[in-house]
């Protein structure tokens, strides 16, 4: 697929050992392959060589001066010495310089024990300092922003942090200020360092200059136990390591998987773990007695819930919701619970706007983004919903000159060039169909105009990746047909679907949908979708609901319907880690384990099934969802359906999933059923301007899961706000910072006013999944909603001084 010409192999000698590597390899990498570690500070394999620190000096025969290994490419017959006396002298010199004014506060430094300055000084450094004057001082404990603290004295100015921010994140927050030995790392404009990727800088900083607030002074590296895990905060599934000390999580750390995360994790993934130690964490089951939740034992809670569920199941009046926040094994167990234990097909993991969590064909891998020449995003807000995928997009656009086209109601905040095609919900399918038509008719007949222009871009692209959010079935079908067309014309195409939850795809593939069994097996029958279950419950037609790891009260589009359903259903049991808005309604609450407290597999958005290991023990009365479901099965006499053994379940699941990869255009994967109420229609759009169309917008630090209870994440979550177009703001007489009350079909929410041109006129872009201001009070089951906006508070008590402007 990649079009680079084959590279010649070259042979060189490093410290007497012959090494053969491809042309263009850097000496530092060649040495690594030969088993010699050349010390580096500024060099980082994911970034361009910078050649700043000069610690990597090596001797190359026939070249008089020492050369830096990090920017010297190998040559045939090159003879390199990495340990000669001259090299040792060069290294010793660089280390002496770096240590001159270094504060040597290793005993209180977080990096102590895993610090490259400590380590290289031990290996190559001078024994003692020859500095006879006092050390120079620089600022210490500089608060860089919500996540990072900087010690300028420890900083060795390798600039990995600024280069990460520039080259990888493409954000240009971090800069070097001043010059020479006065140089300081700082933010470009002195404001806070706010980036979804900030935590990575603490890892790549070779010394203890950048420390994370979450981990500062918490532990020493040698006291940490490590568990190889996978982040489940979103559907990218970045690989990470959970570091714990005496059974308590201290930090998370990247665990590079080039194909998935390329060695990075985002701050949501990195910092969401302290909620486990908050009072709001459920440490034992609760049973509602006289309207109050009372603590109960595990067995008690299981016994009561099992009995009520069985009774309802006998009448065929039970529903199961969840799966997208469980492991693959647990999602499978949940569908076993529904179909085999309770005998119902009423099971659905879809508690948001997403209908499909996978492409039915043309499946892409995350790595395919790297080679794409055109990336088209439909609706998915990748920086907020899949941050590490977004890094890949940024790289493809900024460094590999891929084109980026965003089709959606508003333009997300992206640091790379992106063409925005504004569409209103409903119109997108039509656009796709037109495109397919124009692509089909060939270059000559494409004609003029906007559709022709995009069609031309599609036709010109060598490799196309489409990313969508799985929400609009009509549009997805049209998109897939368009991709079929392009595919017919020999364009490599691929589709990625950003999951609504971390394991949405795993849940779909495990059969947590009403019409498909595990492995997308078509059942030829269907139970109720989540929306139908809520409607039935709200109408008094459902006797019991079991919800596992889902919070529809906050995330389901029609919040009012869910509220009525949860109130009215005669029996509700919820398993979760915290007392969510949904669990608050439950008759029985089961305390569920977090991912760190169990092991298993999860499936990321590209369909990659990844294993994660257990890092810590759950609290005594807390059980994994698997353990909970197995206990139900046992109590109900069907222990064969759900063995309390993740390995055994995984083997079963693997067996049924074998044939379940998305297939060819002729043989696409079957689709989960979508009910009528969940389909939006274009003509709903209210153009009267008396009311605003409500478009919920995702935000990385919002969300209805356990992260809502994490103090670190909470500190970064914005207050609820809605963005209005400047014209609309002027029309209704509000300015940035005012509070408005949005009054819609199911109630009202108060939000801060933001004003920005990214909002189309007549639209309010409202933060989704905010517990203090749930946007789902304003929406129907299809996600459509409109609301009036009334100012409830002015940003300033007194009107701002007016400034006379004369022309």
């Amino acid at each position, binding site marked *: 697929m990649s079009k680079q010409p084959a590279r010649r192999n070259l042979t060189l000698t490093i410290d007497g050992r012959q090494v053969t590597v491809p042309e263009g390899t850097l000496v530092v990498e060649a040495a690594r392959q030969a088993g010699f570690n050349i010390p580096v500070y500024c060099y980082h394999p994911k970034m361009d060589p910078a050649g700043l620190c000069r610690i990597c000096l090596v001797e190359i025969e026939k070249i008089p001066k020492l050369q830096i290994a990090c920017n010297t490419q190998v040559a045939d017959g090159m003879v390199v010495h990495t340990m000669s006396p001259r090299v040792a002298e060069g290294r010793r010199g660089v280390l002496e310089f770096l240590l001159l004014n270094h504060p040597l506060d290793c005993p209180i430094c977080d990096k102590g024990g895993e610090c490259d300055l400590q380590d290289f000084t031990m290996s190559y450094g001078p024994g003692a300092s*020859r500095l006879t004057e006092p050390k120079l001082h620089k600022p210490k404990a500089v608060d860089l922003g919500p996540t990072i603290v900087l010690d300028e004295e420890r900083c060795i100015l390798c600039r990995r942090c600024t280069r990460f921010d520039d080259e990888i994140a493409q954000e240009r927050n971090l800069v*070097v200020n001043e*010059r020479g030995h006065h140089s300081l790392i700082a933010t470009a404009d002195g404001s806070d360092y706010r980036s979804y990727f900030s935590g990575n800088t603490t890892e790549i900083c070779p010394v203890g200059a950048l420390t994370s607030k979450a981990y500062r002074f918490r532990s020493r590296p040698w006291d940490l136990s490590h568990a190889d895990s996978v982040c489940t905060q979103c559907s990218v599934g970045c690989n990470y390591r959970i570091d714990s000390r005496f059974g308590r999580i201290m930090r998370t750390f990247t665990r590079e998987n080039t194909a998935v995360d390329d060695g990075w994790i985002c701050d949501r993934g990195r910092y969401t773990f302290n909620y486990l130690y908050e009072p709001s964490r459920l440490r034992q089951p609760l049973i509602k007695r006289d309207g109050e939740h009372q603590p109960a034992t595990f067995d008690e809670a299981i016994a009561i819930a099992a009995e009520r569920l069985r009774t309802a199941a006998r009448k065929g009046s039970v529903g199961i919701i969840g799966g997208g926040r469980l492991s693959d094994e647990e999602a499978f167990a949940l569908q076993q619970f529904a179909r085999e234990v309770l005998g119902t097909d009423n099971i659905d993991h879809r508690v948001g706007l997403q209908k499909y969590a996978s492409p039915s064909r043309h499946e892409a891998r995350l790595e395919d983004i790297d080679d794409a020449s055109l990336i088209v995003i439909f609706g998915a807000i990748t920086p907020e919903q899949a941050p590490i995928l977004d890094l890949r997009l940024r790289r493809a656009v900024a460094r590999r000159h891929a084109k980026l086209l965003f089709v959606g109601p508003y333009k997300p905040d992206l640091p790379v060039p992106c063409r925005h095609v504004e569409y209103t919900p409903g119109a997108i399918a039509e656009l796709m169909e037109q495109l397919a038509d124009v692509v089909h008719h060939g270059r000559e007949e494409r004609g003029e105009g906007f559709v022709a222009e995009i069609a031309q871009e599609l036709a010109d692209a060598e490799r196309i990746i489409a990313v969508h959010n799985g929400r609009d079935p009509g549009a997805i079908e049209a998109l897939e047909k368009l991709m079929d067309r392009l595919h017919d014309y020999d364009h490599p195409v691929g589709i990625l679907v950003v999951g609504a939850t971390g394991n949405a795809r795993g849940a779909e593939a495990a059969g947590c949908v009403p019409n498909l069994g595990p492995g997308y097996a078509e059942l030829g029958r269907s139970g109720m979708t989540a929306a139908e279950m809520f409607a039935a419950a709200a109408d008094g037609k459902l006797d019991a609901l079991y919800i596992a790891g889902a919070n529809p009260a906050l995330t389901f589009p029609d919040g009012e319907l869910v509220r009525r359903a949860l109130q009215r259903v005669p029996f509700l049991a919820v398993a979760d880690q915290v007392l969510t808005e949904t669990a608050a309604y439950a008759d029985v609450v089961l305390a569920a384990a977090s991912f760190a407290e169990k092991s298993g597999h999860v499936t990321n958005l590209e369909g990659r099934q990844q294993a994660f290991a257990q890092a810590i023990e759950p609290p005594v009365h807390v059980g994994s969802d698997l353990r909970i479901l197995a206990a139900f099965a046992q109590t109900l006499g069907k222990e064969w359906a759900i063995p309390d053994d993740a390995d055994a379940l995984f083997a079963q699941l693997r067996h049924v999933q074998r044939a379940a990869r998305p297939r060819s255009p002729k043989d696409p994967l079957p689709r989960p059923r979508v009910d009528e109420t969940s389909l939006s229609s274009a003509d709903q759009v209210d153009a009267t301007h008396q009311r605003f169309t409500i478009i919920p917008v995702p935000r990385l630090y919002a969300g209805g899961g356990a992260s809502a209870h994490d103090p670190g994440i909470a500190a970064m979550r914005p207050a609820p706000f809605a963005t209005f177009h400047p014209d609309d703001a002027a029309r209704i007489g509000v300015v940035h910072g005012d509070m408005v009350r949005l009054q819609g079909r199911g109630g009202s929410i108060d939000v801060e006013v933001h004003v920005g041109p990214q909002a189309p006129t007549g639209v309010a872009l409202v933060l989704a999944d905010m517990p203090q201001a749930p946007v789902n009070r304003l929406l129907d089951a299809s996600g459509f909603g409109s609301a009036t906006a009334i100012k409830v508070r002015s940003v300033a008590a007194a009107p701002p001084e007016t400034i006379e402007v004369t022309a």
Partner: protein
Amino acid sequence: MARFEPVLLRGIGQLDLTDIENYKQLGGFAALEKALREMTPEAVQGEVSASNLRGRGGAGFPTGKKWSFLPKDGRPRYLVCNCDEAEPGTFKDHLLLEQAPFQIIEGLLISAYAINAAQIFMYIRGEFLEGFRIFKRALDAARLQGYLGKRILGTDFSMDIVVHRGAGAYICGEETAMLESIEGKRGEPRLKPPFPANAGLYGMPTVVNNVETVSCVPHIIERGAQWFASIGPEKCPGPKIISVSGHVVRPGNYEVPMGIPARELIEEYAGGLFPGRRLKAIQPGGGSSAAIFEEDLDTGIDFDSLAAKRTMLGSGGFVVMDDTTCMVRASQTLTRFFEHESCGQCTPCREGGQWVARMVSRLEAGEGNESDLRVLSTINDTITGTNLCPLGDSIMPFLSSVLRRFPEEFADHVREAGCPFRVGVAASMAS
């Protein structure tokens, strides 16, 4: 001895060469006419190569060869003129800018024609405000008369010059730092490779040439490579402006044939030393160069002869120090300059430079110790040759050369806990 007939400085002091008519009266723009009408770009390049012109910015790289490195891949090419002149002791480009702007413009146009450039950028040191104004006026005048802009002199050749002012950093004279600066970034040298010929300004193939270098070009075209190559040594010929400063009777810019002995420059041109003084040290190539001494006075002032003396011609800043000069004090001035001007990217330059400057300052203040002397005499090995750009390699040459030559002077500063010269000055003032 007959004085050298000036080439680059011809007419300066007699005529106002910032007036385009006066410049033309002296034969100005004839070379441009000749190049555009009678020569192909290849022929112009060939002539410059044959002249053996070597860059006057400091490194002395053969200009024709530099031009020939540009890849022929259809990308736009840029010519950048380096007028950032900030090397201590160098002030020749300043003079050319203010007194002979049209010679620069003509040289740039011919060079741009030769390398098929898309655009010329003129980078002028921020402090040269007057020179900047003069140059801008000169551009306007040249444009009015059809020497600049579309279809120059009615030929197919179109060219323009964009002027960019620096903001006061010595390092922006280094060619890749200059490119960063023009691009609006922090002025810091780039890591090489890639070299500017391949990926220069805005990533495009780029040539950076010094003001004096391009000023030579019209004369080479007009009078031929043979004539140019016959002036001075074969491998580094041509006229050369030397900025003479320090303890001489008549400091100033002198245009001499390359290879002229240092003694002749001092005595015949600069009026010799002050009466009763003895020569102590000379920096022949600006603040970055190692010193030469009395016994080196017969050395030729050219790239190769000075390199043979383990110093350099550099930018041609010729600083003369007589026996009243304290070598520690002189070293202090220079090391503090480099400490201040280091961009801070490389560890040895940033940290080592700062440390050296502190040690030398302490010695001069009478607070130095034996350990400083030991460190100073060995630190050259870890500072020099280990950096990303030549600034880091400029910190030590002068200091090392005078420390080797006058070790007792440094030791005296420790032993007497102060500067013996200052004591002398104080005593003479008291008397």
